[in-house]
């Protein structure tokens, strides 16, 4: 038994069922590179074969928006994955216990405020938050970081200031409301959240270069797959829902806040660009625009897919509605006070 197991292991370490794959390596493994090579040839040939026929305007528009969302998010995803892999593989675990306050209720606001230093959009923050949890940071604190960082980092605040010239109170309102939602959501999760809802990713005990590559590959493939799911959903709704429908509801105060919050969920615009889109929705009140800016980086289709993939579906099913409700209420209150 032990002999056979040893043989299996050295022949095919990754095999799910060693006895079935035992000895098949020589037959199965070399096939995949040939399939791959054939695929690459087919892709290059396919452009001249298929592209002239796939010209339906709706399909082309859909695929342009789909590819645009994926292409635009990829650099941020890669940045987040690099940081996350560095956190799990290169930073010693003791660092986080020293850097964050010991008591969880104090750690949540500190982690939320620390989100200000990660210059990226929401795609980058999911793998980083997962890496923090893997390194033993309290989940609630990592979640506060996850929510705050795409909304309050300097790049996003500067782009908001550029999109709303002469209205610094918009930047302030966005910062205050986003941080408040992140901290509240973290505290609520700490008070009411249960451990079995959240799938905390565990880091391997290994550290160093190989662990870095392994963590990076895993995070990138995983988050990338779910990014594609979100991109497809967002592109579909983008093509199907004409923006002119919005003008009709812009007049009703409370409804306009809800509508722009939902629009932020549907459009899944990167948080570094959403301020420009919000500024272009002139028919809406400033409070509604604030809701768009606060909800967008925290809840949108691609983010829901990413969170469900990274932390589990039972987590996303509870955390997403909680965040959405908090974000709408807090931005309504902030807008009423500040704008």
């Amino acid at each position, binding site marked *: 038994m032990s002999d056979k197991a040893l043989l299996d292991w050295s022949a095919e370490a990754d095999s799910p069922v060693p006895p079935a794959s035992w000895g098949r390596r020589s037959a199965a493994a070399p096939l995949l590179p040939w399939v791959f090579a054939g695929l690459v040839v087919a892709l290059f040939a396919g452009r001249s074969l298929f592209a002239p026929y796939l010209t339906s305007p709706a399909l082309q528009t859909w695929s342009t928006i789909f590819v645009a*969302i994926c292409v635009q998010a990829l650099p941020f995803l890669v940045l987040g994955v690099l940081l996350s892999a560095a956190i799990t593989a290169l930073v010693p675990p003791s660092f986080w216990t020293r850097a964050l306050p010991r008591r969880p209720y104090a750690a949540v606001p500190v982690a939320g405020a620390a989100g200000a230093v990660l210059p990226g959009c929401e795609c980058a923050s999911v793998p980083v938050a997962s890496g923090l949890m893997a390194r033993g940071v309290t989940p609630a604190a990592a979640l506060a970081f996850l929510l705050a960082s795409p909304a309050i980092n300097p790049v996003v605040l500067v782009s908001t200031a550029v999109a709303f010239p002469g209205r610094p109170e918009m930047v302030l309102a966005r910062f205050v409301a986003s941080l408040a939602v992140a901290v509240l959501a973290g505290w609520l999760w700490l008070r009411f959240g249960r451990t079995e809802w959240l799938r905390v990713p565990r880091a391997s005990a290994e550290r160093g270069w190989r662990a870095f590559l392994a963590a990076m590959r895993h995070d990138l493939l995983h988050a990338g797959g779910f990014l594609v799911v979100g991109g497809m959903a967002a592109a579909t709704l983008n093509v199907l829902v004409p923006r002119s429908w919005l003008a009709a509801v812009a007049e009703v105060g409370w409804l306009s806040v809800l509508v722009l919050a939902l629009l932020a969920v549907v459009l*899944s615009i990167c948080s570094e660009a959403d301020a420009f889109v919000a500024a272009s929705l002139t028919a809406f009140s400033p409070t509604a625009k604030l809701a768009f800016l606060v909800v967008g980086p925290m809840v949108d289709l691609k983010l829901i897919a990413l969170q469900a993939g990274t932390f589990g579906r039972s987590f996303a099913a509870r955390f997403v509605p909680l965040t959405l409700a908090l974000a709408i209420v807090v931005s309504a209150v902030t807008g009423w006070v500040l704008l």
Partner: protein
Amino acid sequence: MSRLAQGLVLLLLGGAVLRISAFTTEYLNYVKPGFRPFLIAAGAVVFALGVATLVQEWRRPQDAARERSRWPGAAGGYGGHAEAHPGPQADARSGGHGDGHAGGHGHDHSRGPRVAWLMCLPVFAIFLIAPPALGSFAAARDDVAPPPPPREVVEGYEPLRGDGPIAMPIGEFVGRAWGDPNRSLTGRQVRLTGFVVRSKKSDAWYVARMQLNCCAADAIALKVAVRGAPAPPENTWVEVTGTWIPPRSDKLPLGTVPPQLRAIDVTKVPRPVEPYE
């Protein structure tokens, strides 16, 4: 998903991103020009990760023994198993029920998640559909034209210098037409470049351009109604020379009707490399 497949998917994705950013200008159909270095960097990282994965896979038979000593829990589920049953037999056994485990948790570093296969979809779209820049289909979707940029409205635009037709972006024309207290467009010939969008309701047509803030998902259509010239076929790129027609009343709120241009000349032009404004 075996490690070999993971490496190949990464290679495909990285290659596709490098193709549209480093080797062609196709990325301009999707994002802003300034985004190119980030795309090239990201594509290179993904590609290099794929290469590193394949190299690891290639050398694995040789260093399997070393890896066994370094990665005691690698074949089993992520965490738990290795501590519970150390040693090679345990690895083989936990590998035996590793499939269900990986499906439930999806956190096994050596077997990739199945959802990663979806990353082939954008690659297929890039190669097989070759998505073009957004055109008249997207522009016709929103009938409400966007407002002029607010900054210039406060100060007013610079007066237009020189004589003869002035080439300007459609965004600037819209801004000057709507929001310029100095009415700098009055009596001036301008030249606009854009694609043709035909109105669904009447036989009017527009010369239009999409404006990006970050990527094509947030594109907004900028439209100028062209009067006094027959409509060219939908989606052709044209250069329209003409003069602004001031609105008859100031009562219409901004953003409900596109500004109008009386055309003197309409010429077909090739599609510009940078399709968006």
